């Protein structure tokens, strides 16, 4: 956890030399907008047939074939406690590259745009509010909109239940 935050800081401090910007991919999930740091993203692919894997938590939807590699896919909605995904034409799988676990795909409603946020418009949040695991570690202000920045470590962390 701390590792990721530290990494983020390192990256943003590196970038501060240039423009002090961090790039995020903005995704739509229901009413809310979320941002994912672009450096963790390997690829974005269209929704495709997911092969179910038995005896795994419900949010793990199964595995897909990503150019000959078998990659696990999870539902961001189910993981965050929202209702089941409705697959539309806009549904995408974002392939994240994680240091430890390799690639993991997350299903999102829609990928909107790529934005660059300066450091001063990112507000860090305390990690644990009300004792609940938060999947968001910061909020970014982009024009008039607020974008919740996802904490990928808690998201890809296995549920303890």
């Amino acid at each position: 956890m701390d590792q990721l935050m530290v990494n983020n800081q390192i990256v943003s401090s590196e970038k501060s030399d240039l423009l002090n910007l961090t790039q995020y991919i903005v995704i739509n999930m229901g009413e809310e907008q979320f941002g994912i740091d672009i450096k963790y993203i390997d690829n974005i692919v269209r929704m495709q047939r997911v092969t179910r894997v038995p005896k795994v938590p419900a949010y793990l939807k199964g595995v897909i074939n990503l150019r000959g590699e078998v990659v696990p896919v999870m539902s961001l909605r189910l993981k965050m406690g929202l209702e089941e995904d409705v697959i539309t034409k806009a549904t995408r799988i974002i392939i994240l590259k994680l240091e430890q676990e390799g690639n993991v795909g997350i299903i999102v409603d829609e990928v909107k745009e790529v934005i660059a946020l300066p450091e001063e418009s990112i507000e860090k949040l305390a990690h644990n509010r009300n004792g609940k695991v938060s999947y968001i570690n910061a909020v970014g202000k982009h024009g008039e909109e607020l974008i919740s920045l996802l904490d990928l470590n808690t998201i890809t962390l296995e549920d303890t239940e």
Partner: protein
Amino acid sequence: MDVSQYLEIFLDETKEHLQNLNTQILILESDPENENTINEIFRAAHSLKGMAGTMGYERMKNLTHDMENVFSEVRNGKLKVMPEMIDVLFQCLDALEEYTDNIQSSASEGTNDNQAIIDRLNAILNGGSVPQPKKESAPTGEAASSGAGADEEEKWNSINLEETQIRVIKEAQKMGKNVYGINVVVQDSCILKAARAFLVFKALEEKGEIIVSVPSAQDVEDEKFDKDFTLVVISEQPLEDVMNAAANVSEIAKVTGDSIALEKNKSYEAVAVSMQTEAPKPQSAAAVPAGDNNKKAAPKPAAEKKQTPGKPVVNRTVRVDIEKLDVLMNLVSELIIAKNSLVAASTQEQNAGVEEHIEYLESVTTNLHESVMKVRMVPIESVVNKFPRMVRDLSKTLNKKMELYMTGEETELDRTVVDEIGDPLMHLLRNSADHGLESAEVRKKRGKPEVGSIFLDAYQDGNNVIIEVRDDGNGIDVEAVKSKAIERGAITPEQADNMTDKEIINLLFLPSFSTAKKVTDVSGRGVGLDVVKSKIESLSGEVEVKSELGVGSTWTIRLPLTLAIIQALMVVVGGEKYAIALGSIQTIEDIAPEDIKLVQNEEVINLRGTVIPIIRLSEILEVESTTAPEDNMAVVIVKKGDKMAGLVIDELIGQQEIVIKSLGKYIKQTKFISGATILGDGEVALILDANALM
């Protein structure tokens, strides 16, 4: 010069040379006059020395240098090869191997000078007689912790003292103060070593002044010491008081001490006579001022010990025969041509000849596939080559005469399998040598040749590779195994009566089972055969033993040629496709629902006289079966050892060659799913592990 880029090559070649040396010295042992062998050894030692020198591994270079010297003399006929010399040479090789391992794991050769071996080599050079090595200086790598071959009791004499420190000590002695060397050993169980050491420091400081600490006070504070540290203390109080002060600290195992006599100290000699000391770098010590050298050398060993190597610095490589690569290259060129002709055909108006091109493409990809797999294959030679040496050593430790005969070293297996198979094989060989072969007297009595034989045969059998370890020893005493198993509570006497000999022999593979009457350090601690079995099963192989009392035993290991591609039966369960490895499948049956009977609340079928439990895959996989309850069911009969089970599926697709892919680390693999594969249409299908289902 930055040589790190050559590290891989260096390690590869060093291992090759070491293996070569091992083999050649073995030959030399049986044929001391063989000129070719002597030349070969000399050349290998020479190359090793050159390589180590280039890479900057001084200790390794020094050792090989002395080894080369010995061989140079042998080659010139000035020295005769003697049995003791062979022993020293083997020690040399072990030490070199240790250096290589260190380099592989941490990029540094370690701090062991192996002075004892060098001394013995030099002794051979000088007089021809070989002094017996001191016990502590055996090439185990531990000896270097604070000066080579230091006597536990008088560690303070091997401390490297700086000139200034020596002056202080002299000064103090002149003033009539006592200078003590104190060695403090912390208990093994002590958790807060640094804290205990701190208390010792504090207690001693009340009694006098600590002028030297090895490892340095800072290192001790940081817990960078193994379990003991050595101090030089100036005090006006008697030795006993000072030692008691240290010993009163709890969790201190032992305190030894004595007045320091400077002339006994090695570095004092160095400073006084300005001669080469036994500091860790004998070569460079001559060039560097001794005091300077000592300063660096003293705290170093402790600090290095602490450094636990995490990831090996060198990646694993496969050396590939150039011909295999040529074949690959040709196939890739063909693939490009095939692709181009397809592109051309698709742009033409009439799609003439597309079919033909696709067929061509298919044949190219199949061949390409096979060739890539072949690139992963390496001969088992690299593993079994170390066995003759091992058997020779075993023969000495066990005091039995034995000979190892190997065939089929060129048999190829997947690199991952070859890497893993060494330990199980070694264990079986040790087992044969220790338990299997009888002592020479017994063999004589039984009319067998005095020298026992162990055979290691490897050969390919269809899609499998068989490795057999065979001995002409005593064989397995079924009765002994039986009584042992009953004694251990593994089986009841009633069970034992109903078991076949084969079943009883298989008990040997149970954890913590050893029939050796006495425990030797070779084998017989009961951790072994079960490990062998689980290791081989983890490689998707199996192990079997056949034995005849008084005649010998044969251990047969059967391994799949490659782990990456298997023949599988594709089935459908609840609309989902699954693969089952063909190797475990016996038959496929069409079973009517009324043929299923309940035995102890479990579903079974009676298949041609055998009662087989039924596993409904749809239940295990948590899907709705698409077969109506009144319809006949397709049942795949799988076998694991002597156990059978019937897997109920919905539909059969057919046999297919599949490439096994991992599910990725993120999904904690369910026990009965051994991986996934990608089907022709790009869909992912999971692979069921029939063994885990049973």
